């Protein structure tokens, strides 16, 4: 390797080693040791505990549903934007990027106003006489899902948009000139070619939902997900052993999901 390159890369690498790699390695290591002995007890204790399993299950369920809804809402919108005129495309892209750059605290808080007991939805439903008592939406897994879909929808839209922009429209035109209906051309060409993008966008949403803290903390109430449970163990209960185990479980799940889905996306990629 070029000596000059080493000198330029070294400060950054040392920084990441000292302040990311070492702390994480030590945390992972600490979960296998108890009273000076090597053991899996930390993990066994967790998976034997019904409470943690429920939290893990809630988290996975919320993340899966969030990802599916984001795909369902994001794909058609991205497709529409990719086919729009340059001017419209620019405006819609800007409108997608703006929420992405806006603080997650602001975005989750806006849903507290809408979903709360005296929130927009409940006061509408009560005032119109559709229901007598306000519904409990806020502080449920459903509220978390709504907040997370709102948080990650722009991400999947702009990811898909990137893929759709790179799509070779000559292929679609060729299919059309050979007699394919617009829908057939979409189904046989556009969709298969953009599926890898849908998967990549899906990974981003899924991993993001799995590890999000702000939105579940604000919209979930007492309902816990793994990230808020990690925080609770570390900061409220001061059980750092437990927090470390949760941290490692989160890292493992993230890496496994990213690895598997990346492999899947690559296999589907016709250019790959």
């Amino acid at each position, binding site marked *: 390797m070029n000596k000059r390159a080493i000198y330029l890369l070294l400060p950054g690498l040392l920084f*990441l080693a000292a302040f990311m790699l070492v702390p994480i390695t030590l945390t992972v290591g600490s979960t296998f040791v108890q009273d000076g002995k090597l053991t899996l007890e930390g993990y066994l204790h967790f998976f034997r505990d019904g409470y943690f399993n429920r939290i893990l299950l809630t988290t996975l369920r919320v993340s899966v549903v969030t990802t599916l809804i984001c795909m369902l809402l994001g794909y058609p919108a991205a497709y529409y934007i990719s086919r729009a005129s340059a001017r419209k495309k620019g405006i819609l892209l800007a409108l997608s990027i703006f929420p992405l750059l806006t603080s997650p605290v602001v975005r989750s808080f806006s849903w507290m106003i809408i979903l709360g007991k005296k929130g927009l939805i409940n006061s509408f439903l009560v005032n119109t006489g559709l229901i007598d008592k306000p519904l409990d939406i806020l502080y449920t897994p459903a509220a978390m899902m709504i907040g997370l879909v*709102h948080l990650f929808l722009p991400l999947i839209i702009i990811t898909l948009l990137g893929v759709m922009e790179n799509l070779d429209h000559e292929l679609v035109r060729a299919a059309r000139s050979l007699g394919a209906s617009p829908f057939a051309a979409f189904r046989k060409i556009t969709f298969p070619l953009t599926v890898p993008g849908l998967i990549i966008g899906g990974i981003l949403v899924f991993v993001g939902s799995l590890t999000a803290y702000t939105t579940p903390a604000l919209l979930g109430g007492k309902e816990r997900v793994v990230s808020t449970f990690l925080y609770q163990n570390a900061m409220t209960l001061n059980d750092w052993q437990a927090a470390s185990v949760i941290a490692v479980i989160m890292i493992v799940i993230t*890496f496994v999901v990213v690895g598997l889905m990346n492999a899947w996306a690559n296999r589907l990629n016709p250019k790959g």
Partner: protein
Amino acid sequence: MKEGNRALSLYTVLVFIFLLGPLVIISITSFEPGTVLKFPPEGFSLKWYQNIFEVSAFMETFKTSMIISLLGNLLALLLGVPAAYALSRYRFRGRDTLNAIFLSPVLIPGIVLGFTLLRYLIVVYGLPIVAGLLIGHTVIMLPFIIRVIASSLENFDFAVEEAAQSLGASRLQTFFKVVLPNIRSGILAAILIAFLESFNNVDISVFMTGPGISTLPIQMLTYVQNYFDPTIAAISVILMVLTAALMFVIERLMGFAYFTKR
């Protein structure tokens, strides 16, 4: 096809109403004169905007957030610009791996990173909380700095650099007089994107608070969990205006192409 187009455009409109509606609602409620957030508001008042400046915790944490984000940004630039340059300029074995390592902080869940930094930096190494806050923010800004700058270096022709050197410029001179001016807008955009990422961060900061030390998002989070008055709505509006302004500058500097690239 026309029918399909109409349905699709209606669907897209609904998606954008879902995306932007809550932000519009939060903005409108910030003008509520009463003490409880309501939609629609029962009048028009700017008193909650005034309240932001009267609650000293908001001003204090805003200052901390600014200082941490700006200092962290500077640190991330000092570490990231040379790295981005080396990764774009030189071809060597293991380059892809190194690239992945530099971008890896985005792969580690923020909440995990925050916890490990608290546990080791603060408790084991004994660093002060502010240092932990600064380091954590630098770690999460680094990938953004490197990615944006590397992508603007992609458009830079390194032959120009060789030309300057053959005319007698030193490596350092070449870098500061030829390379840097050419990627200036990329660097500015990187600074702004990293700044927003750091300024809005909760996952790391939530572990790095102590007596007198907190950041604005954490202060907002704590406030929301205790009070439900329109102050946070007012702060939200100010933050959104700032975000929109920075976004406008980013667009001017390099367009939005960066965002759609993965």
